[in-house]
């Protein structure tokens, strides 16, 4: 499994994270090349959202190093940190639009905060970003007035506002119907063709993952168990990768415990 590439946009070295003494990530190593779409796959609780929070600089790893364009957000000057944040656009799982602002104002917010552009230019740029995601007429609406899919597209527009080099999606298709989810996949592919951005997508939707990915990385219990192209992953023989791709469930019902309970009950030993 090839985890390192030459001149990566994003580089993770031995990244380890614990919450309340529980290890979530066990020394993850991964490089993401410039212009590449990397999909992070994994089941619930595999640590993929935690890994994403390290990449976008919301948390600092307990051990190891995360660099994006050679900037380590945990160990850099305030100026570099600002540069770091400006070079990454994030589309959050729940869209995270500000409800007190209209859609247009949401998109304009990073521009108003970080540029000195005149108001007319900012509004034009916000409109352009909305047009890219197909929401050109929705600018005046409030986020509550939008459907789930539209909210996610608006979130993508806001992530694009400062023309970032890296675009990050957290579960883009979660909670969406198949048609809207497919539209979002198409949007990701369009952005990739149009802007050549580096993209990191966290998902557990296999169809979507294989549609958009250049390479995929699979996490299981806080460790990377597979990294490779679609073909490499599909031909993997790793039992956990196979289980995930073939959708084989783990045994959930603890029937043996029920049997044990009745056995002890019949033997007159009152169980707890």
């Amino acid at each position, binding site marked *: 499994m090839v985890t390192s590439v030459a001149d990566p946009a994003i580089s993770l070295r031995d990244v380890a994270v614990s919450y309340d003494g529980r290890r979530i990530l066990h020394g993850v190593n991964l490089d993401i090349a410039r212009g590449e779409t990397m999909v992070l796959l994994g089941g619930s609780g595999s640590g993929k959202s935690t890994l994403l929070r390290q990449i*976008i*600089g*919301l948390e600092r790893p307990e051990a190891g190093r995360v660099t994006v364009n050679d900037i380590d957000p945990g160990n850099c000057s305030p100026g570099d*940190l*600002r540069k770091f*944040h*400006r070079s*990454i656009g*994030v589309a*959050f*799982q*729940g869209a*995270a*639009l*500000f409800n007190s602002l209209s859609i247009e104002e949401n998109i304009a*917010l*990073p521009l*108003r*905060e*970080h540029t000195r552009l005149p108001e007319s230019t900012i509004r034009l740029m916000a409109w352009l970003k909305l047009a890219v995601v197909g929401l050109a007429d929705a600018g005046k609406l409030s986020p509550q007035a939008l459907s789930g899919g539209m909210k996610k597209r608006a979130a993508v527009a*806001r992530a694009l506002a*400062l023309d970032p080099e890296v675009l990050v999606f957290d579960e883009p298709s979660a909670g969406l119907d198949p048609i809207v989810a497919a539209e979002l996949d198409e949007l990701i592919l369009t952005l990739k063709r149009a802007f050549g951005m580096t993209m990191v997508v966290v998902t557990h939707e296999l169809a979507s993952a294989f549609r958009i990915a250049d390479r995929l990385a699979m996490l299981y219990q806080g460790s990377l168990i597979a990294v490779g192209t679609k073909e490499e992953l599909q031909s993997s023989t790793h039992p956990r990768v196979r289980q995930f791709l073939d959708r084989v469930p783990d045994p959930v019902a603890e029937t043996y415990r029920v049997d044990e309970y009745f056995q002890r009950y019949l033997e007159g030993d009152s169980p707890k």
Partner: protein
Amino acid sequence: MSLLTGSVERVGKRTTDDVEYCGALARQFWNSLRALSLTLPMVGNRNRWKTALAQMLHIGVQAFPMVTLMAGCAGLILAMQGASELRRIGAINLVVELVTIGFTRELGPLLTAIAVSGRSASAFSAEIGTMKVTEEIDALRTMAIDPVEFVLAPKFLAALVVIPCLSIFSDAFGILAGGTFMKIAAGMTFGVFLRSVARTLALRDVMIGLVKSLAFATIIVQVGCLEGFRVKGGPDAVGRAATAAVVKSTFLVILADVGFTTLFYLTGGV
């Protein structure tokens, strides 16, 4: 033995939690002081000042009817209670003095702070808590926007401006209510009332009241916002944070008032 170690452990845990809370409060206060300059008009960020103006409406103007009504009622209560005692020693004309001193030194700022704490501390924590739950705070940070500067500082500036103003109005309405009572109960004329107020009203008392209300404003904003920023989990945590914000800020306001009054008492002012 295990019972003893268990209770010692609980006391220790509670103590470290409280110390940690105070530390978080102090750190947030320091950060918000630095962010406050960016909120000022002319020199700061124009967008923050606009937000601060909107917050002044929320915290101040919309609380005005409630605060003045509360102050009026408390003024009447104080005047009636005072009159029933003072009448027995033939000093009912001192009621105006009692209400004037009582309100400028104590009741005006305190009642205002309690009213604002109930209205706004819960609103701050619910607003920020919801932003936390819906990842809006995370979104701000990924856009290189400091949540303390963006969300807290405008509220802080607004509270520092409007809570002292509300306290002044509270003073005025409390004293007026006392005067109204004296007009009805003892037939005191408006001129006599005004002269009594002018004789009793001391600039120092009013200033002490204003200093107190600045401290109360700080407590309400910092506690309300910190409760919001510390929300973890889902919507139920937002509800708990709103309750905690009101309870803690009201308690701390009264505690701070005890501190101030003791200080002024010991330095011979009160």
